[in-house]
């Protein structure tokens, strides 16, 4: 499945992707701990195991390019340049959060970085990306939009609508499907007829399959789709086969009566951890040294520690903030 014959990333690009993946993992490992200890106000859906997809795709994107993400959106946010500290504060529900504590984990967004938001509705971001792709087409400056979504979203009706209109209007849009095998607690294959990629093929756009645990392969595939979109040649679909090592959300075990995944399956995918595999590859190739990797781990441990400490110390949003944010030009009045 991996397109080994595609031109790959240069060493500095590989190092940048490793950084991105390490940052995501460090942030989410802490979020996992803090969630299980009840230190976060809401739940978190972690991207652990899928980092190579966000890193490989976002490596090609500029701030002006737009992405929409999913409920599992921390990785996309960080890979697209979102601030770790602002994300951590957001997940802690603080006024210093990137969304001032109004969105939380499932809605991290930074419009200045082209991150049009993680989204709590499965497939909810897809049409927003299509609209952003329309804007990019009208701008005529080579901008693109990427809709990140999962196998679950591919069973929503709007998936078809968006494939259709993107193809009809030749929009600079990449449908980035991360097939992690599960929609919430249900194995995707038990609720999905046919192959997802065949659905996109029906609309006549280029379709790629890639090993979603191989950052270089994702990078190379995304390069083709994004260059095509920038050149005005229209949308593409990419399907990355990957795996969600953690649950649908942290602490799910407390709510579910029995496991829905075999321990052996999870362990097998842990053995294919995209970051461990990438470290091994880059070390072997001399792109990074073990010391470089240790330095990265140390750097991000500090980033995370400081982000958490700052978030804990940060002020809460005021109770009247929400009413002031509904409209640009007025505060919602209480009429009752």
């Amino acid at each position: 499945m991996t397109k080994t014959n595609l031109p790959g990333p240069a060493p500095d690009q590989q190092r940048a992707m490793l950084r991105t993946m390490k940052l995501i993992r460090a942030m989410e490992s802490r979020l996992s701990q803090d969630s299980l200890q009840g230190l976060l106000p809401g739940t978190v859906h972690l991207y652990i195991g899928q980092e190579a997809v966000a890193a490989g795709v976002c490596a090609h994107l500029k701030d002006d390019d737009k992405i929409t993400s999913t409920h599992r959106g921390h990785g996309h946010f960080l890979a697209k340049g979102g601030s770790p500290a602002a994300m951590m504060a957001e997940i802690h529900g603080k006024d210093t959060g990137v969304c001032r504590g109004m969105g939380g984990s499932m809605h991290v967004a930074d419009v200045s970085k082209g991150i049009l938001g993680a989204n709590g509705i499965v497939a909810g971001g897809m049409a927003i990306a299509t609209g952003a792709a329309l804007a990019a087409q009208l701008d005529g400056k080579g901008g693109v939009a990427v809709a990140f979504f999962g196998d679950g979203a591919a069973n929503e009706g709007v998936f078809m609508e968006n494939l259709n209109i993107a193809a009809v209007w030749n929009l600079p849009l990449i449908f980035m499907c991360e097939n992690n095998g599960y929609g919430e607690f249900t194995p995707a294959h038990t609720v999905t007829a046919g192959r997802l990629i065949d659905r996109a093929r029906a609309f006549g756009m280029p379709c790629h399959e890639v090993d979603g645990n191989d950052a270089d392969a994702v990078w190379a595939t995304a390069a083709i789709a994004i260059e095509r979109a920038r050149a005005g040649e229209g949308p593409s679909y990419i399907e990355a086969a990957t795996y969600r090592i953690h649950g649908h959300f942290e602490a799910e075990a407390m709510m579910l009566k029995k496991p829905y995944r075999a321990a052996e399956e999870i362990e097998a995918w842990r053995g294919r951890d995209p970051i461990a595999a990438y470290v091994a590859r880059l070390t072997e190739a001399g792109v990074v040294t073990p010391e470089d990797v240790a330095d990265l781990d140390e750097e991000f441990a500090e980033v995370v520690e400081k982000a958490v400490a700052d978030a804990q110390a940060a002020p809460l949003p005021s109770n009247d903030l929400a009413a002031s944010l509904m409209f640009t030009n007025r505060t919602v009045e209480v009429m009752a």
Partner: protein
Amino acid sequence: MKKRYAAAINEALHEEMERDERVILFGEDVEASMFGDTAGLLDRFGSRRVRNTPISEQTLAGMAVGAAAAGYRPVLHLMFGNFVYTAMDAIGNQMARIRLMTGGQMTLPLTVIAVYGGGRSSAAQHSDAPHPVLMNLGGINVAMPANSADGKGLLKAAIRDDNPCFFLEAGGRGAEMGEVPDGEHIVPFGAASVLREGKDATLVAIGTMVKHARVAADNLAAAGIEVDLIDPRTMVPLDYATILASVKKTGRLVVVDEARDSCSAASQICAVVAGQAFSALKAGPARVTVPDVSLPYAPVAEKSLIPNPERIEARVRALIG
């Protein structure tokens, strides 16, 4: 100058697209334009900015959000008011929510046009007045112009507004003539229009119902009963101040709304007035609405459910006693 309702709306679209190249229009059959409101725009502004779309309401509403977030001022023609329900995820979960969820980062200057209301034997899937649903979402402005001047002025205000705005066109009224001021004409959101003044009762009529309320008010005046007739013009924001001031003067309130009764705009207005002007009231606030029934196809059956001048007049008389 007198203009037809649809022509006044069409003129607003022409003027705003001329004024600001970031205004774009897309929707189902905007080229053919069965209502006439989008006629001629494709020829004038070209297929980059004016686009016929597939029938994909949920995606179209989501695209309006995305295009607005990316710097444009999209106008989406959703065709019929009932299609609000078809598009509801994008409206209720995205359009109405994203500004708050992003801590105010996202500004969504978009307009959705939809034609609403019954009386044309279009049956129950093309006849609803969906404004109460939109009012309940929060985060979305809702304009309901009752005449040509407000059609033009409110649409121009909607397009220039930095918030999502629904512009609900009164169904079946496209050919009605009305005076439209010459030159630049903008009607601000949240400013009710007082159409006639009287001391005996406050009659609030919404959108399509303004026409019937005018007839009722004329008939009542002929019998010596004078009402304040108020057209709120926008349901979000709603000009409660004008309504409350009127009720404090008259002591009686009747609200006429083409929505179904439960949680209608009429019930909301009555609730606020009951809460905030209770001591001024000489009678319970009254609603003239569609019962909680789907509008049927058969003309007489449909007509019997939609408020008409006789029902409005009778309700005012009953209040006065």
